């Protein structure tokens, strides 16, 4: 397909001059951009292409701007286009309300490179967001990522060959269902990170997803938390409160099916002055299918090396760090119920451990202590047009 470089300015002018209510079409074709394209402050705008792989925006050789497309506006529909090779994040939506992202594909075409942009589809600090039927690949951080947002639904998406397939970070009232995450380093991540304006996430339901064969090399640049993620991770929950994980198929992992850890376990500094809670609470994992891969766990990352050292070449199904908030001993910190037979489960009891020999003495494999029902919570539904 020939590349059209003249459309970039046409589209940018249209997005600057749009009236509220405008429907801006991206025709069939391959269009090159040398700087970020953006919509800022004009509400009720739709940007609609002819479909994934049909309307392609390529940012190869981009000279300016830290993302491919940047949206800061309310009541927005983004549908039916592909964003390729953005210098930074492919599609960033910030400080926006009522956003629908449908049938959008973000990718980097040169394969898994640490110089690829961080995020594919990246709503941050948004409220009422629906991400559906999208595809994200080759992001050097997360393919589909939602951060510091409220009321989010992610469904029917496919994330593959990213470091993290799908990631929920410091977000509240999130439903993640009917998604497929495969061939990423890690399938689905639910993190609470310190030092952010939205200090804590909460109320996340993850169900009916398939997280399979997420054994892809970790090609994230050092620095970000995902750079420590061991290849072969089905799902990882860090320091979150109120997470229900059920009816998922978590399969084909060579290192770990599900990890649940506090921020302490990352051994990274944090600050609680904004109310950040480094512990996980009310994590309810039930009725999932776990099926590990027959393989040597990852040796490239510290966490994988630890799994290898503790369990000598055996992939694990569920590992928790056992670092519980002493102030909230009464809450069910974590419940692991009806997730199948013969699971390799370990509570690391890592609170006092320093080093592998220490850890070995403290391992607890008795999951029956955690058969319980999590405290139920409701996820506030989204409102989009």
């Amino acid at each position: 397909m020939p590349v059209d470089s003249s459309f970039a300015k046409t589209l940018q002018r249209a997005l600057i001059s749009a009236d509220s209510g405008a429907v801006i079409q991206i025709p069939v074709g391959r269009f090159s951009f040398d700087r970020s394209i953006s919509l800022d402050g004009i509400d009720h705008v739709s940007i609609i292409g002819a479909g994934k792989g049909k309307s392609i925006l390529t940012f190869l050789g981009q000279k300016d701007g830290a993302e491919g497309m940047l949206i800061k506006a309310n009541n927005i529909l983004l549908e039916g286009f592909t964003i390729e090779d953005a210098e930074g994040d492919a599609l960033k939506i910030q400080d926006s309300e009522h956003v629908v992202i449908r049938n959008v594909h973000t990718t980097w075409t040169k394969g898994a490179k640490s110089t690829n942009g961080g995020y594919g589809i990246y709503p941050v600090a948004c409220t009422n967001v629906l991400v559906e039927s999208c595809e994200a690949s080759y992001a050097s951080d997360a393919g589909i990522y939602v951060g510091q947002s409220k009321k989010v639904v992610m469904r029917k998406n496919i994330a593959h060959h990213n470091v993290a397939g799908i990631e929920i970070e410091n977000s509240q009232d999130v439903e993640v269902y009917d998604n497929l995450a495969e061939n990423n380093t890690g399938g689905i991540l639910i993190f609470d990170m310190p030092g952010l304006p939205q200090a804590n996430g909460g109320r996340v339901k993850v169900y009916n997803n398939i997280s399979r064969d997420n054994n892809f090399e970790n090609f994230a640049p050092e620095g970000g938390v995902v750079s420590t993620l061991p290849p072969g991770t089905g799902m990882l929950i860090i320091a979150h409160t109120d997470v229900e994980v059920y009816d998922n198929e978590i399969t084909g992992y060579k290192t770990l099916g599900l990890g649940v850890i506090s921020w302490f376990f990352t051994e990274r500094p944090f600050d609680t002055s904004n109310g950040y809670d480094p512990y996980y609470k009310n994590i309810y994992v039930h009725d999932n299918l776990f099926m590990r891969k027959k393989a040597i766990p990852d040796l490239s990352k510290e966490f994988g090396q630890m799994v290898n050292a503790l369990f000598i070449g055996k992939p694990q199904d569920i590992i928790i760090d056992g670092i519980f908030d002493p102030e909230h001993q009464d809450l069910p910190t974590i419940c692991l119920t009806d997730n199948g037979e013969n699971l390799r489960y370990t509570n690391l009891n890592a609170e006092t451990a320093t080093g592998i020999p220490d850890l070995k003495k403290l391992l607890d494999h008795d999951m029956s202590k955690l058969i319980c029902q999590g405290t139920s919570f409701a996820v506030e539904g989204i409102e989009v047009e």
Partner: protein
Amino acid sequence: MIISKDLKVQGGCDPAEQYMFMKFIGNQMVGKNYHANEVRWTIFGLLLVLILLSCEQTYPAVHLTDEPFERLSEYHFFKDQLNQLSPNNRVLPYDLITPLFSDYALKSRFVWMPPGKTATVNDVNLLSFPEGTALIKNFYYPRMDSDHMNIVETRLLVKRSNGWDPLTYIWNEAQDEAFLEIAGDFKKITAQDPTGNSFTIDYAIPNKNQCKGCHERSRTVTPVGPTLKNLNRIYDYPEGSMNQLVKWKEVDYLTGYDMSRDTAKLADWSDPSTNVHDRALAYLEVNCGTCHHQEGPANVSGLRLDSHESNLFNLGVNKAPVSAGKGSGGRKYDIVPGKPDESILVYRMQSLEPGAMMPEMGRKLVHKEGVQLIRDWITSMPTTE
């Protein structure tokens, strides 16, 4: 002021001067003993109209309309030849103590407010500008082949009834006009840095949304340069040197300013006699803090670079990146005390890659002197080990 043979008024349009002139004419008429009052007042009135019209033809006053002009000259901010940038009446030049680095471009800044209007000091020590205000900023380089300047662009912030409107005018080759461009552009520039090294860059002129991207507080466009503390310096006016805030007060561009109370003064980043901490924070506030501010677009990173920030973690000390992607440069923390070469802050200031560099736009060169300052500052921090 004199009247030439063809009765065209020569001289300034200062109302005081005009008043003196009319009084003079009036006295002349009385002196010549005209007896018919009607005749006297008719002639007086005709002369007044003539003077005002002639004056209009010579130096039209600055005027703004609800819609932006296509040409910079239409605003009449400058008299005589446009590229001399000689300010028209009421167009007041100003300078900042610590400016934003823009690829070593030189800048000349002006402010204009409608007659009878004035800025006020609001409670957070910021300036609140009246409707109709125009902030005018010219970006230029000395020409390598002549003594003239090469003016690249003039950026305006015009305060309309619905808020600040960012406008960029790109100068033509002849340097006699600049034209409105909302979609931005690139211009090949060859010039020299302060150490005499010549460079050639694709200077990036921002599109309208990119202007908004930096001039943003809580999703509202706002000026970021002229704060009380950054204006609090001496300026060499044609009529003599004077503190800018005192001058603004004197010409009624500022009310509510109390010289003994509003003493806050930003450090001069380039003044080696000031301590390195204050200089570094001033530099970071101006170059990074427009976005990395509690209400700025980079607040989602949790990194706050303004000179009031006292929480070291928020300033980046031992703070892991959140969504830096490849911007981390493989480094773990924004600032590692004592170790500039392990600090992400320095990496991103030294980078020229669009997806990794900071600021995200408006820079095609490394600001060597700025980087050195931040390196010195980080080196001066006591190591935490």
